């Protein structure tokens, strides 16, 4: 059976070796962050850790690059609004 992590409370399967971001794209999730100013959706853009568009919260730690963090069994992954500290968009 393929391993899973929790994405916003639901189980999401991944293949060992995939990044969190790759697993999300594979599951058809295109965006998981809203921007601080305009509240616009963002997902993966550069895919190699340069652009920081794909930020999300992993095990309570905000602003993690989804494209750089390897998916691991049992991770708690959450989409992120604004600055990632539950603050309203400025």
């Amino acid at each position: 059976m393929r391993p899973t992590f929790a994405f916003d409370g639901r189980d999401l399967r991944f293949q060992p070796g995939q990044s969190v971001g790759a697993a999300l794209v594979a599951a058809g999730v295109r965006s998981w962050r809203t921007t601080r100013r305009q509240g616009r959706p963002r997902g993966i853009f550069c895919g190699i850790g340069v652009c920081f568009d794909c930020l999300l919260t992993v095990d309570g730690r905000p602003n993690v690059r989804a494209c750089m963090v390897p998916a691991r069994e049992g991770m708690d992954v959450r989409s992120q609004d604004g600055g990632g500290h539950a603050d309203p968009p400025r």
Partner: protein
Amino acid sequence: MPIPHGDQGGRYDVVVVGGGPGGLAAAAAAVRAGCTVALVDAGPDLGGQYWRHRPGRLDRAPARTTFAVLAEAARSGAKHLAEHEVWTVGTDDRGFVVRAVNGSAERTLGAAAVVLATGAADRQLPFPGWELPGVFTAGGAQALHKGHGVRVGRRVVVAGTGPFLLPVAAGLAADGAHIVGVFEANATSGWLRRLPAVARNLGRVSEAAAYRAKLATSGARYRTGCAVVAAHGDTHVEAVTVARIDADWRVRPGTSRTVRCDALAVGWGFTPHIELALGLGCATRVDFDGSVVVDVGEDQATSVPGVYVAGEACGVGGAALAVAEGEIAGFAAAAALGHKATAEPDLAGRDRARLRAFAAAMHHVYPVRDGWRDWLEPQTLVCRCEEVPVRAVVESVHELGATDARSVKLLTRTGMGWCQGRICGYATSRLVALESGEPATELGLAHRPLAVPVPLGLLAGSPETREDP
């Protein structure tokens, strides 16, 4: 600056930063010359962007022979520190101190010499809708496919300029994506004016031809003189506008059409990662493609003694060139430390000369022309991180009197966000130059004290790292 953390990662003759073609070749060469070597890389496995592969699928990586030989040499003789991003290289009384982070944990490595093989990322240009989810950099789309077995979309448009678009499109097509079209902004007839460089590099040419053939088999069309000038959609890309463009990249009136797709992969050449070298004070130059690159001598040495650079960071030219430069850099670093070279540096030197000639020709055939300025709308974002529109950049020049990219950054926050201008630096400097009539100064945005964001505790010099950045 004294480093408070000690060398808990060990002390080496040579520390190589980057596990792609250049870094692997440098590490392998330094190991062969008898040095103690550490290789620090951000990825989970060696290979960099070019030799990126899925875990356990090494045999399917392209050019696997070269990779296998270099990776084996590096693995057997060098300490490999994976999933560690180097955020700064400092100096102490014994040499260099390489500081790398994995999450909030730091490792520091001492080194008598460093080889920086930090690579490059796709150069980007802004256009309406480029911030929509489903728009990927060409390298990002390829990385998801090569490294993770993930297809970015079902109907994919590939656009931009440069030969790199071909392997990206061919790879996506082989993975089952329908490539709606490959739109190359330049006219490839430019190669006809560069035949000497072509003749010396038939291998590179046949590689491109093989990708073209693969693409043709999949039914994908390759069109030159065309560009994606806008992306459309509400929460993700649903269509793009494709137009024919003239030699200056201005849209030819009446040629725009809408193409349905669920993903766009786009790239306009490459921007080298030079932050670590800049932080060390290495001299730079502007390359044929307009990129700011590290200036190196015959032995890949920079202006700072003990610091060597190989690969894209000293001039974008592809994996084969990076391997030649890495080998030269690795042997040179070893020789400077008193280790005698055992191989023939002449051979790598000849490869390097031939491949640099090809790279120069490539940059002349696939330039970025300024006509993209006309694709923008006032509300088009220039800086994706800080969501700064074109309008604000233009106003900062015409109403606030800014004449260089650095002033525009301070006035508008362009390039001040998470990515520190890595994505928008080129476009911002060109845009400011076009608006102000002053020469472009990309270097003003290229200076970044930190190569990657790090926890505040590290900056404060506290031995205890914190969880919050």
